[in-house]
């Protein structure tokens, strides 16, 4: 709160020399090792890397779902804990995590109810968010009546309900088929174009990372660390056809090279 302009901090997310170490019997596991990352407001940042590279851990640290062993993390100028209490971010998990006893509408209303908003207001906001993810007319269905892709859209609508400035997504489309995934990527891209919220997106798909983000952060395992950051040269407005352009392929290639390099370093260390 010592930030001179707490309403508009320079960084949506600022991570400085953050490490996460899990104690273990033989050798402690270094899930994150001295990670530095600065994310400006309005950026769409993809965290990519092989499993065990700490990309999900990094996201969970920012979301106050896990705590760092050393270093510093600031979210909108606040500690992750304070940012969470201030409801500064929305979080979309790998699976939709919808409550089966609530309707689609009531699921989207959940965070708003927890915030203590008036019932009419909760309902209006939830209806609006459902419309934005293309689920108008499904309000009174129960989650089990929807397909996996629709369920994940409900969970995105739920995360956007209280208009967080920061949206964190942990492989949200990982469990979906490729066709559904493409469509949701397109919708997410459109959503970001319209509202320009800061998005931190964890994925292990190179195509997804390149298509969606303005910056790709490549990570590597053992210890989990950032090995390269690639700023996308793709135009701001994107469509799925871009994936066949030479520019897209060039960036994808760069990401793939960086991932390989990370693995090489791993082999050297081992």
């Amino acid at each position, binding site marked *: 709160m010592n930030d001179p302009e707490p309403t508009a901090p320079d960084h949506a997310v600022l991570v400085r020399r953050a490490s996460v170490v899990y104690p273990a019997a033989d050798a402690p596991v270094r899930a994150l090792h001295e990670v530095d990352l600065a994310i400006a407001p309005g950026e769409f940042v993809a965290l990519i890397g092989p499993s065990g590279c700490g990309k999900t851990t990094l996201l969970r640290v920012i*979301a*106050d*779902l896990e705590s760092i062993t050393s270093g510093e993390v600031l979210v909108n100028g606040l500690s992750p804990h304070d940012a*969470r*209490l*201030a*409801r500064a*971010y*929305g*979080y979309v*998990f*790998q*699976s939709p*995590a919808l*409550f*089966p*006893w*609530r309707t689609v509408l009531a699921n989207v209303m*959940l*965070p708003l*109810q*927890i*915030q203590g908003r008036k019932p009419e207001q909760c309902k209006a906001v939830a209806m609006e968010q459902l419309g934005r993810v293309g689920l108008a007319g499904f309000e009174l269905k*129960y989650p*089990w009546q929807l397909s996996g892709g629709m369920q994940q859209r409900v969970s995105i609508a739920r995360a956007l309900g209280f208009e967080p400035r920061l949206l964190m997504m942990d492989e949200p489309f990982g469990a979906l088929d490729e066709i559904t995934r493409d469509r949701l990527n397109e919708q997410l891209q459109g959503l970001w174009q319209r509202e320009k919220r800061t998005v931190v997106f964890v994925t292990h798909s190179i195509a997804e990372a390149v298509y969606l983000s303005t910056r790709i952060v490549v990570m590597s395992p053992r210890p989990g660390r950032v090995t390269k950051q690639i700023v996308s040269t793709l135009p701001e407005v994107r469509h799925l056809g871009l994936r066949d352009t030479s520019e897209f392929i060039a960036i994808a290639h760069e990401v793939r090279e960086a991932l390989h390099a990370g693995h090489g370093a791993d082999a050297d260390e081992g």
Partner: protein
Amino acid sequence: MPGTARTLMKADHSSSLAQRVLPIAAVLGVTVIVWYLGCIALNAQGAIERVLSNQPNWTTTDLVAATWAMERPVLPAPHQVAFDLWSSIVDWPLDSPRNLLLHAAVTTQSTLVGFIFGTLFGVLLAAAIVHSRTLDRALLPWIVASQTVPVLAIAPIVLVILGTLGFSGVAPKAAIAMYLCFFPVTVAMVQGLRSPQRIETELMHTYAATRLQSFWMLRLPAALPYLFPSLRVAIAAGLVGAMVAELPTGAQAGLGARLLTGSYYGNTVAIWSALVLSALLGLTLTAAVAGVERVVLRRQQR
């Protein structure tokens, strides 16, 4: 897992009425036949000595007829029990101690009071246990141990103590019923309140939900599919508790008291009527809980 409970419910609902009734009717038919045969076997000696002694040339048909119509048989025939039950309900006013419905009502009252308080106590106990590791470690062994003490041994002590404190009538009986009710509820609710997956708990965490909000919006609804089966067990156990509590007090009314007076006077038909009525009462109470369950959980995944 709630998933299993849901699948079981589905199996229940989807089968047609005939498919559900037929097996039950078949077992009932076999039971009645065995019962009548049992009457012949068990009552034959008494019938020969008491009924047929002044009838020198009795046949097998006479013997069978006698075993099914004796006054104080070892095992009364189904129609004797049915007739006794019917006449007690129809021939006597509702407030007469000879009317079994009065006794059923008295027992139902203490069962329901015990059930309601037992359920509340069980849920509160479970909520305390899942929110505090200390309570979990301190209470759970005692709760389990409490159920290993036979209720028949506890009942007179509780009745005497509560009687000394000035509680009589429904309260002591309800206390015994409650003692049996709370246990299944606590065990099921501890499991149910812990059933939310990590991702659901973390979701509430990212919303900065308070403990109370998490309990009310996540834990409690998630526990309901666990709660209802335990309520069905609890209400049946509560009925047992209420009836057992009626035995040592020399209570004037209640199905338990009725069983006791029946056995004092060797009135086997009266014992069996009370027994049959208590079984029907147990079925009714369990069905009522199942009905509430169906209404409350009708929206959940089936």
